[in-house]
């Protein structure tokens, strides 16, 4: 029983991070309609700027972390503006953008490697005794992750449902052309969705950096999991992506009950391929099948 609750707890921790990644990814996808792999680089930049400001420079967390999130946000907006926006005009833009975002991901990852070096870094926070919650041992930092994510998600949900900007975002995501004729500034929507999405990635990066370690190569698995979660939930739909994140996190961690833990990464991709084949619109998605497969 204790093992089960521990696995569920681990699933929720991983799921929170995946859900943050998936929510940001999906928010950007809902407007720009391409798979932005560079989102994974934003996550790494969030983590490393937090490390730079808080650990190397030594600012207190409450100053360092918001600034790190701001850095991630600005980076996301900047890349989108310089590299991705112009490519949107290509006919086969999906492929061009997918590859270009892969390129940007690698470029940023290698720049971080050159600046910070290849060794594993950590905030070196004191390891605190875990609390026993229903048989699962959870450290305070993990508890922060488990709690922060839903708080952020409720914020996003309220923003999308209740505010004018949120409604405009959803309208643009539904139908860009009609949204534009109704006077919604599409470029502003792109700007907002990229900024918000990148901020979420930055936040996810910081949370992981606090709880685990920092490595320049941490972004690839994060974006792949986020992307998988977004597709499994239903791509372009933020709440569905969030649920997809928790689903993947739990599936991975419960899966190692049966499989060697080395297969953890493979589990989410098997789920991805199954979903692409049989339910490409995702678990909760309304998206038409035709957009994904013939």
């Amino acid at each position: 029983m204790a093992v089960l609750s521990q696995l569920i707890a681990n699933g929720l921790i991983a799921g929170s991070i995946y859900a943050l990644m998936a929510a940001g990814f999906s928010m950007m996808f809902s407007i720009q309609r391409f798979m932005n792999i560079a989102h994974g680089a934003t996550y790494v930049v969030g983590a490393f700027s937090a490390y730079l400001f808080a650990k190397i420079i030594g600012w207190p967390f409450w100053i360092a972390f918001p600034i790190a999130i701001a850095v991630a946000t600005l980076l996301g907006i900047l890349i989108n503006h310089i590299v991705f926006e112009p490519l949107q005009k290509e006919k086969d833009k999906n492929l061009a953008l997918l590859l270009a975002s892969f390129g940007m991901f690698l470029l940023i990852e290698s720049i971080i490697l050159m600046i910070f070096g290849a060794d594993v870094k950590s905030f070196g926070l004191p390891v605190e005794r875990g609390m026993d919650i229903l048989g699962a041992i959870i450290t305070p930092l993990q508890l922060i992750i488990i709690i922060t994510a839903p708080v952020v998600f409720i914020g996003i949900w309220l923003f999308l449902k209740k505010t004018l900007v949120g409604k405009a975002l959803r309208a643009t995501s539904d139908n860009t052309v009609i949204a534009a004729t109704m006077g919604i500034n599409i470029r502003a929507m792109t700007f907002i969705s990229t900024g918000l999405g990148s901020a979420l990635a930055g936040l996810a990066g910081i949370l992981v950096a606090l709880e685990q370690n920092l490595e320049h190569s941490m972004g690839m698995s994060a974006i792949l999991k986020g992307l998988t979660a977004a597709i499994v939930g239903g791509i372009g739909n933020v709440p569905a992506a969030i649920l997809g994140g928790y689903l993947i996190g739990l599936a991975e961690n419960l899966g190692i009950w049966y499989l060697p833990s080395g297969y953890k990464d493979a589990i989410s991709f098997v789920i991805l391929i199954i979903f692409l084949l049989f339910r490409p619109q995702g678990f909760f998605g309304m998206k038409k099948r035709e957009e994904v497969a013939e």
Partner: protein
Amino acid sequence: MIETYLLHLFIIACLYVILTTSLNLAIGYTGLLNLGHIAFYAIGAYTSSLLALNFGVPFWIGALAGATLAAIVGYLLSYPTIKLKGDYLALGTLGFSIIVESVLKNWVSLTRGPLGLPGIPKPSIFGFAIDTIPKYALFGLILAVLVYIVLEIVVRSPFGRVLQAIRDDEMAAKTLGKDTFNAKAKALALSAFIAAIGGSYYAHYVTFIDPTFFSILETILIFSMVIVGGTASMLGSVAGAVLLTLLPEPLRFLPFPSSIIGGMRQALYALLLVLVIRWRPQGLIGENTFKKFKNGVKR
């Protein structure tokens, strides 16, 4: 010493020519954005290495066995994935390659997992041992030229024209009575077959392989070579492979730790990839990958 280094570069360039031209068959000519090419390469490398290490199977039989296995896997992979569109196909194949990598890492009783396979014998073909660097370079040259000729013949054949028709307008190809699914599956199988030969060629050259050789970064490298060289041009792929093999080499002599040099190499590939997509989508030689079609006519 310097000759050995240059010949080594030549051998590696031949490997990448084999990998890029075969990938170009899938991407450039058939329009399949296959991000799983490296998995076929891995299957080839591991199959012939394991056969040679465990059963003393001669190189060419092992290489053919690996290539056949990869071709079968490629053909089977097309059943679930080929109906997916563009970027979703890319994701599906990427998932496939990560699953293969994960199996290589975890099936320890067969592959020794992260420890890798040391002591892979140098090949010997019909009693002719390819055991020195110059001999291997010649072997690489012959192999790369052979692959190039075969692929050039394939893409100019009626079959190759069907592939290009599928890429340009699959519906039109179907209307003309072409079995587009079968053609795409065959193209993927052929592409996989050649990549696997590249894998055997490389494994028996370096005599040691481990799963890290077949990571997603390697996929991106080969992809960059295809895009930089120009898609739908075999000559472009050769140019891309040679250029991207040689270009980062001077970095090796900079006074930095190897991890930093590795980062620089990666940055160089990534930068080239982005610049080419952004400003010269047709690559060095080739057609615009993301070309615009209007009423079926290339603009």
